[in-house]
């Protein structure tokens, strides 16, 4: 019998509120060190925490998308431990009353759906950031007091694939709920799996892995741990409960510390923050502007006929998907092709985003509809792309100015077809004698005659009618 793998994962996510959780300092990444700080963040004597209500709103949104039951009566607790990055030498967290309990995230592994159960989610404050030098360590308190949620699964994950799928899905949900940026590389999402293996129903010895820099590395860390633990057990040796860190270069885990018998954090209820009662009104208000979740969007895209590969490309780019949310009533295939194709290329080339261009919602809608009705061809669209993006003119004006309005006048098209047919009677004859490819040649000549300005679909239809009559 092979070993059964059991993994539980703790994820910390920074909430992207404007201000910190207990002080009015700005909560943002990338500022110069120690500029977004005040006496509260530094743990100065006499300072008190002031709970930022926005944090509760964000956490409630996270509870909703992770299917967690919201704890209406909750409080904060102090977790006491000494470390240089911990300004008060206690962290304000939730020990007894996490804001969310008993939720799940549904994943799909090769077509099989599985619910990854979430034990709890609680709110806490981030510590400052240590930068270790050779002889000294520096502290950046910009991060001290940034709001975090910690999401803890039950030990119900049984493979590295499941772990990766869970984390991808979790990241997607929190991102789409506008709760967190979930950027692992910036530390706004931190994943810490604990891995054990066992041949019996009883769980094996747990090893926690920290310092993992990407979701795929979580998978690799689990794979490595499983192999390492197997080897030790096969040798008949005993595993010790420990914390290890993932080394990106060697793709291995390295021992940090062996766990001593239970950490003593001396938890007690935070006396400076009155107990919180979340009213139904407050919860409703917090969920009021919750955006549509990715699976709902996937469904719409699929119904509209967007290719699966493109659906995932859109979902992977939240800004793009959010943009598309405004155009659910137009042809989504054309819209998504434009956005993923020429428009993306234009934006990338110029290193800008849509909001930096002159492409208004009306213009985009008009453009997609014109392409949908074949009022302009793809070629013309490419010709006028720069004008669309860079001028205030609407599409009709651009087409007029460039003399590019597609000819939809039936009598004009008839005249042109007649001219082409009479000028190329040899090709017509080839067609009539059974060479179907000749029709394509005639169509090409027709478009050339129309200087690319005639509506190709109606012209083709008319051409075929005449040829077959």
């Amino acid at each position, binding site marked *: 019998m092979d070993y059964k793998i059991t993994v539980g994962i703790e994820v910390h996510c920074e909430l992207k509120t404007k201000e910190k959780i207990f002080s009015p300092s700005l909560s943002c990444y990338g500022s110069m060190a120690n500029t977004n700080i005040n*006496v509260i963040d*530094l*743990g*100065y*004597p*006499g*300072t*008190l*925490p*002031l*709970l930022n209500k926005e944090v509760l709103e964000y956490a409630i949104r996270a509870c909703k998308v992770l299917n967690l039951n919201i704890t209406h009566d909750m409080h904060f607790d*102090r977790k*006491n431990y*000494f*470390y*240089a990055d911990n*300004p*008060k*030498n*206690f962290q304000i967290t939730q020990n007894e009353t996490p804001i969310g309990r008993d939720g799940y995230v549904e994943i799909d592994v090769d077509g099989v759906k599985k619910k990854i159960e979430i034990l709890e989610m609680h709110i806490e404050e981030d510590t400052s950031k240590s930068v270790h030098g050779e002889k000294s360590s520096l*502290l950046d308190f910009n991060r001290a007091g940034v709001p975090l949620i910690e999401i803890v699964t039950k030990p119900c994950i049984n493979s590295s694939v499941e772990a990766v799928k869970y984390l991808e899905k979790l990241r997607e949900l929190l991102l789409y709920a506008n709760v967190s940026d979930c950027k692992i590389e910036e530390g706004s999402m931190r994943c810490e799996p604990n891995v054990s293996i066992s041949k019996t129903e009883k769980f094996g010895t747990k090893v926690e892995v920290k310092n993992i820099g990407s979701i795929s590395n979580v998978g690799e860390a689990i794979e490595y741990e499983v192999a390492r633990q197997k080897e030790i057990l096969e040798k008949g040796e005993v595993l010790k409960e420990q914390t290890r860190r993932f080394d990106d270069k060697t793709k291995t885990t390295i021992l940090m510390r062996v766990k001593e018998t*239970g950490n*003593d954090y*001396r*938890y*007690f*209820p935070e*006396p*400076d*923050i*009155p107990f919180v009662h979340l009213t139904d009104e407050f919860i409703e208000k917090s969920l009021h502007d919750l955006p549509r979740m990715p699976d709902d969007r996937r469904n719409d895209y699929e119904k509209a006929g967007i290719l699966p590969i493109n659906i995932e490309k859109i979902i992977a780019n939240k800004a793009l998907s959010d943009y598309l949310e405004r155009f659910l009533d137009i042809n989504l295939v054309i819209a998504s092709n434009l956005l993923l194709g020429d428009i993306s290329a234009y934006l990338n080339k110029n290193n800008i985003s849509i909001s930096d261009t002159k492409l208004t919602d009306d213009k985009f809608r008009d453009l997609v509809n014109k392409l949908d009705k074949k009022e302009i061809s793809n070629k013309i669209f490419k010709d006028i792309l720069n004008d669309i993006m860079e001028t205030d003119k609407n599409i009709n004006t651009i087409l007029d100015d460039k003399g590019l309005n597609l000819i939809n006048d039936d009598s004009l098209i008839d005249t042109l077809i007649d001219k082409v047919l009479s000028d190329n009677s040899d090709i017509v004859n080839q067609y009539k004698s059974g060479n179907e490819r000749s029709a394509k040649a005639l169509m090409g000549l027709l478009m050339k005659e129309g200087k690319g300005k005639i509506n190709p679909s109606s012209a083709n239809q008319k051409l075929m009618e005449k040829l077959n009559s």
Partner: protein
Amino acid sequence: MSNYINLSIKEIHVLLKEKKITPIDLVNECIKKIESSDLNAFITLDKEGALKQAEELSKMEVSDDLLFGIPIAIKDNIMVNGLRCTCASRMLDNFTAIYDAGCIDLIKKHGMIIIGKTNMDEFAMGSTSETSYYGAPKNPWNKDKVTGGSSGGSAASVSAGLVPMALGSDTGGSIRQPSSFTGIVGMKPTYGRVSRYGLVAFASSLDQIGPMTRNVYENALLLNAISKLDRRDMTSFDTNEDFTRKIDKPLENFKVAIPNYFVSDIVDSEVKNKILEIKKLLEDNNVKVDFIDIKHIDKTVTLYQIIAMGEASSNLARFDGVRYGFSYPNPTSLDDLYSKTRKFGFGNEVKRRIMVGSYLLSGENAKTYYNKALEIRDDLQKNFLKVFDNYNLIIGPTTARCAYDLGDKGDDPLKSFMDDVLVMHANMGGFPSLSMPVGFNSEHLPIGLQIIGNLRDEATIYGLASFIEKNIKEDFSEVRNGL
């Protein structure tokens, strides 16, 4: 030496208004009195700052605010921007505040002048002010006696007339007990009445800032000034009321309770007899006074030890030598920095309380002790609230005995807690409680009466206190005039 400071606030106000004196005269007088005093009441005297502010105020129109231009002393655990804030500890000997506490904002808005920072027990932990890194302050009534504590410096400075008013803080009697020992009026307001923002935390769920003054009226006046909603303290509240409004008003249908515990054998007989005299005075004036029993009233020292020390062990964890304050030089590791900084930065009493508090919150102890204590504390509050269903106020002695000799307490930590056995209930339940002088013992040391009110009902306390103040013969100003 001029003696304007010994006049009442109202009298001083008239002189200021009539331009007979300026705030500069008041500040100069305070500074002279403080500098010639041997009470060790101050840790920091801000001569320059106080004079500068007095000069600025002297150029201004005197407002109708009775507190305009009045000098005040601040306990040295309350932040005053730009002034040292030591908490009477070596740990913060070199620490300068970089912001104003919530109540200091208000003090400054009223145009009061901060003279300096007063001596106290280290981090407010003690009942005699003897745990101060700067040595104990002395009791103006007898310089061999303790001032009480922890707000001993504030009590001594008001009692001796060095300043007309002071602020203290009270976690388990630290305003009222020294007020009782030095014959002044001290109020611990309802929890949340005065913002704790900028008060160095000892036990967060018990701490409260309050006024220490020479008489009842001026106490209510100062409480008016410092109580306001402060969004920076989530436990802060405001009722927008005038605390002087019941002063000198008749006591109609008034009922007062005396817990039997407050006149039991734990109380010195001279003190007890004085309280019984007050009982008689009240009864002679148609106030109904009953002896009552309150469940758990004898449990407070135990509750206090668990809750206050548990919270203190966490609150004082931030003093680690990393960001501010004393930092042990050239440590060999982070742990070495922590242990040496705290070993040499804190005094024995503080270390003792941190260790006991850490033990009480450790592992299963949190459930056995801390959570249990919180439950009993809730019950105790409910039991007091029930009393207030039937009585306007509860009275009793502030302390079981009068001020004792410096050094008398020795190194017995329990003895000092027993001093506060009658005052801790108000902190446990969040109730307002005032101490006022009502007489002397045979050593001519002041005896304090404690009046406990219902939550947010400071005004009624001041009402009864003003009545008693008016009807007792003793004069408590002799140590002020005796300079």
